[in-house]
């Protein structure tokens, strides 16, 4: 059973629909007790870093999420902003992240002469860095839907499991033991997203 954390931000319906489609049982909750009993956690997220952290703190979810990830060591996946929340901080805000992966979140910056737009929005390819169960079976064709203005930078390159090029390579999926994050939206990425979520459901 995958427990999808509902903290008031994020694309819960789409994640749930894709999990249903691939036959992975899941439920959406913000209930502390239910989260304490979770076997697998999926942390979605769309929006601004500080408003997400504020909501998580208002619902008193921080300590249970950290406990499940660090002590119980259950498989834990953050998607998009959900991945950025796994880092210690973000240039988008001033509040502390969950600090589950040694990494920080910074803003995309390009030279004025560059024609690259921010946000990085659309379909882009991924290349494998450190091998991971989450990305097993990925090919050169695998592409995903991205939409973000901030990117994650791992302190240690081995925590980066996928890289994507947008004005240089950045960490598009990360892993620290049982904690995973994807900057892209698997739930909006057709069969490629189904592949990734199927991998997650089997971890």
């Amino acid at each position, binding site marked *: 059973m995958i427990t999808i954390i509902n903290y008031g931000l994020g694309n819960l319906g*789409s994640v749930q629909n894709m999990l249903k489609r691939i036959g992975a049982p899941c439920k959406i909750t913000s209930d502390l007790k239910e989260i304490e009993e979770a076997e697998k956690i999926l942390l979605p997220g769309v929006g601004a870093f500080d408003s997400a952290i504020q909501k998580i703190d208002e619902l008193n979810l921080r300590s249970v999420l950290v406990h499940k990830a660090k002590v119980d060591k259950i498989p834990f996946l953050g998607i998009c902003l959900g991945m950025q929340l796994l880092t210690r901080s973000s240039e988008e805000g001033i509040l502390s992240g969950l600090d589950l992966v040694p990494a920080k979140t910074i803003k995309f910056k390009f030279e004025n002469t560059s024609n690259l737009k921010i946000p990085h929005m659309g379909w882009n390819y991924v290349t494998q860095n450190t091998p991971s169960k989450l990305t097993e079976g990925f090919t050169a064709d695998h592409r995903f839907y991205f939409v973000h203005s901030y990117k994650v930078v791992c302190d240690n390159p081995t925590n980066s499991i996928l890289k994507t090029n947008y004005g240089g390579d950045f960490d598009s999926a990360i892993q620290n033991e049982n904690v995973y994050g994807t900057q892209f939206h698997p739930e*909006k990425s057709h069969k490629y997203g189904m592949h990734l979520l199927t991998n997650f459901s089997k971890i």
Partner: protein
Amino acid sequence: MLLIRYIPCLLLKDNGLVKTVKFKNPKYIGDPINTVRIFNEKEVDELIFLDIDATPKNKEPNYKLLAEIANECFMPLAYGGGIKTFDQAQKIFNIGIEKVAINSSVHENLNLITQISEVYGSQAVIGVIDVKKNFFGKKEVVYNSANNKSKFSPNEWAQKLVNAGVGEILVTSVDNEGTWSGFDIETIKSITESVNVPVVANGGAGNVEHLKDAIVKGKASAVAMGSMVVYQKKDFGVLINFPNKQLLNEIK
């Protein structure tokens, strides 16, 4: 490298899908849910739904239909039509739609964009600019189904939308919409050169060459298609379709 997005732009009226010509004469195309299923099969990059009835008839967005659409979509989804308040936008995000497209209401209240983007991020807000040539051939920004006129030029308005917090701009040529005659490249180019957010070209797509022009000449980040993906060809019957991916991949 980031891929160019090719986006069916689908028009809603009541509970059905319609297609207009120059924003007029909506013709019934079919059931939106069936259409979404077909576009899922074709693995299209993204979908934009615009409710053309919501603003002129002062209606709420059709949340029930949007929820059904979102449930079927395994690709990104944008919705526009009749959004006037933060609460309405929030309802749409909660349904599982990741972007709201805003047009008419912000001509009176630009702050709505800021309110939404501060909470959901600028990538969640598309600023819609409808452009129409006036009697003297001058390009003007219009809204409320092209019934009202803005005092700002397309470039000025684009800048205002970006300053307010939109993460993307959808530019539609009212004169070209539904005509299969190609995009208004001049306007698209002038907007893409004046703002630093992605611009989606819309209105007039009739063939792959037109799409290429919008990308190569207009410097658009994405291209929206209407008639081309719902009709077999010009003046023919309804056929939900999508251009050959191989041909699209050759556009650079």
